[in-house]
């Protein structure tokens, strides 16, 4: 990205009309395939797969879900996508990537619920979920659960194997580091109970943390917290680049006028001192409205997009100098995926937008496909 990008934009204005690279990589392969949960005005909930062709989005499949979902994990070799229920839901809804059709629904035990996130191992043999052992009123009720995944024809199964502590409360998004040996877990710190809906029960004492744990044994490797002033900054969402740099997105539970970090970076082993917080200059930091909904690295691994649905914008950051690069207005924008030239993002309004990182171009890719839907928080991509 050039420093003098605005000047470049003037020169480039009008040259691009749609994301050509995205479109070019789409020829007859159905890729990239984007997947997102969505809801509609009649309070029905869906998983939708869509592709992009010459700047127009096209629905590939759409299936109704038993309840609202959150993130969708994708494994290309298994040919499976796995829809994870939004908290305090208990279902994992598996579908076939080629056809979209439903393969299986697996529920977590009655005394557990999901947090909307999960991750496959690269080899597709295992899947990990974050869960709440909610009957534990005291102590850390966060859990990380290992599942064995198996796909044979139209049969897909998940066998629950091991349950580890998440070393915190309210674990949310989790990742497997590139070496596949270490899990990175965002412990949001917020205690909830299914009998109390989505009520937050421990704001005054909440303690979020970033945890690295052994994926095979569940042993704690490292745990990091922000300084005490920021204990209400709930660590929720994560992404990583190829070198294992972790981008951390937060949702601050304190006063609207407090200034608290909403983004941070961390690299295990390289920065024993803890997370590096990222700050936008005012008024952008304030406009982020204490809430980042989703965070993703671009394909180069240098830039990150952090969506701020309450602030109605997507923010872009350069991890080389920990600074804000720019923002794009997006009403209720939340789901973000990296595409060849930048990011595709989705919004609660139904909009799908492509953003070219190099030229600062914004291209409206249509809205809600065949029927009006509100895109949910996360957008997944099956890449070429």
């Amino acid at each position, binding site marked *: 990205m050039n420093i003098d990008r605005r000047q470049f934009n003037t020169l480039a204005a009008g040259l691009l009309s749609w994301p050509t690279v995205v479109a070019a990589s789409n020829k007859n392969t159905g890729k990239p395939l984007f997947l997102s949960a969505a809801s509609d005005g009649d309070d029905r909930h869906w998983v939708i797969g869509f592709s992009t062709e010459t700047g127009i989005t096209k629905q590939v499949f759409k299936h109704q879900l038993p309840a609202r979902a*959150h993130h969708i994990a994708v494994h290309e070799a298994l040919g499976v996508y796995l829809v994870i229920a939004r*908290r305090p839901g208990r279902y994992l809804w598996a579908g076939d990537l080629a056809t979209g059709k439903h393969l299986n629904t697996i529920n977590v035990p009655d005394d557990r619920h999901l947090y909307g996130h999960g991750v496959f191992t690269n080899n597709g043999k295992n899947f990990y979920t974050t869960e709440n052992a909610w009957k534990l009123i005291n102590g850390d009720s966060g859990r990380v659960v290992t599942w064995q995944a198996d796909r044979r024809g139209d049969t897909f199964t998940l066998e629950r194997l091991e349950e580890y502590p998440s070393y915190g409360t309210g674990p949310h998004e989790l990742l497997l580091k590139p070496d596949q040996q270490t899990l990175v877990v965002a412990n949001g710190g917020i205690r909830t109970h299914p009998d109390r809906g989505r009520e937050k029960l421990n704001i005054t004492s909440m303690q979020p943390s970033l945890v690295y744990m052994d994926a095979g044994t569940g042993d704690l490797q490292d745990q990091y917290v922000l300084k005490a002033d920021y204990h209400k900054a709930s660590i929720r969402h994560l992404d990583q680049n190829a070198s294992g740099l972790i981008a951390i997105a937060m949702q601050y539970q304190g006063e609207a*006028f407090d200034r608290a970090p909403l983004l941070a970076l961390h690299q295990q082993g390289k920065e024993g001192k803890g997370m590096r917080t990222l700050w936008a200059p*005012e008024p952008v930091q*304030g406009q982020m409205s204490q809430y980042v909904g989703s965070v993703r690295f671009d394909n180069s691994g240098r830039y990150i997009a952090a969506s701020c*649905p309450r602030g*109605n914008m997507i923010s872009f950051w350069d991890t080389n100098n920990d600074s804000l690069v720019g923002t794009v*207005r997006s009403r209720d924008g939340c789901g973000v995926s990296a595409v060849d030239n930048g990011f595709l993002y989705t919004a609660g*309004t139904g*909009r799908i937008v492509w953003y070219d990182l190099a030229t600062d171009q914004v291209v409206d890719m249509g809205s809600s496909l065949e029927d009006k839907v509100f895109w949910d928080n996360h957008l997944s991509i099956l890449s070429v």
Partner: protein
Amino acid sequence: MKFRYAFIAAGLTANLLIAQPADESAENWTEVNLAVTDSHVIPAYTSLMQATQELETIADAFCRSPDAEGLASFQDKFHSSMDPWQQIQHIQFGPITYFNWNFRIHYWPDEQGTGARQLDALIAAENQNILSSDNFAVESVAVQGYPALERLLFEADSLTSLQGNPYRCQVAQTITRNISEITRGVQTRWVDEFRTTVANADERGFFESAEDATIDFLKAQVEPVRRIQQQKLEEVLGESAGRERVQRAESWRSDRSLRNIRLNILALEGLFNGADDSGVQLSSVLLTEDVATINNDFTELNASLAALPDSFAETLEVDGGRENLEQVIAQLDTLFEALEAALKNTDLYLGFNSLDGD
């Protein structure tokens, strides 16, 4: 989205008729946005700016020679500047959100009693440096605005306290200057900058589109209805008779909690219907029959509120007082539901992920 609703039924200008191409649709959104800006938002901020300038002037006069008559005048100006604030409190986007201006004008509710503690500490410190504009602006929001000023002016011993402690009076002056500076900043930015932002909302910039700007106005229309119901009434009334806690009410010390609500609703009705006779207003984006229902709800709600005294405590003291407030709550609920239903009949949605909390 096309303006196929009230515009059409009202038989308005030809360029507002059925099936416009997208660019004309954007013009329609912009027309509504500018009508609301010019007939509602900017006049309201101008009134607030003028009233808070008068508040600052009277504070200076009072503190030069604090007496009972002067305090009464100060209190009157408190009311006459709080009135326009209550009539624009519903706008929570644009310049009012800069520099925490909204919280600095009016930090409420203050559930932890932060304002009282911090104001006492500030006065006890007697530090003149704190009172400069730059320094006061970075003090806690809880000491900077109306709730702190109300505490200084409406305690039983306010006169003797202010007479006996010149620094206390200086703090009151500083708060009025602070409020006045903020309201001037908000008004100026709307006139000089944000009106242009609204006018050009269909180009890439602060807004995603002209429709996007309209949604901010619609949020200002709908969300305060629920907030008034829950925060300003239900929280105070409690779940049953005998559970009322008047001190949870907004502006309870100055005995104007229900006056605030009465003005809030009149202002929301003004936002909905516009203040000029151009025929273009925020309600233009809704179906005609929904507009009629909503206006009927406003009429009934206004009638109920007009019959109540300004004071929450006074209202509760009379027989049937609680029931009267419960009726207002029910009417607010009806109005909110009607607004939600009206929006559902359009393609306009106020939020989904932004309300999620995950």
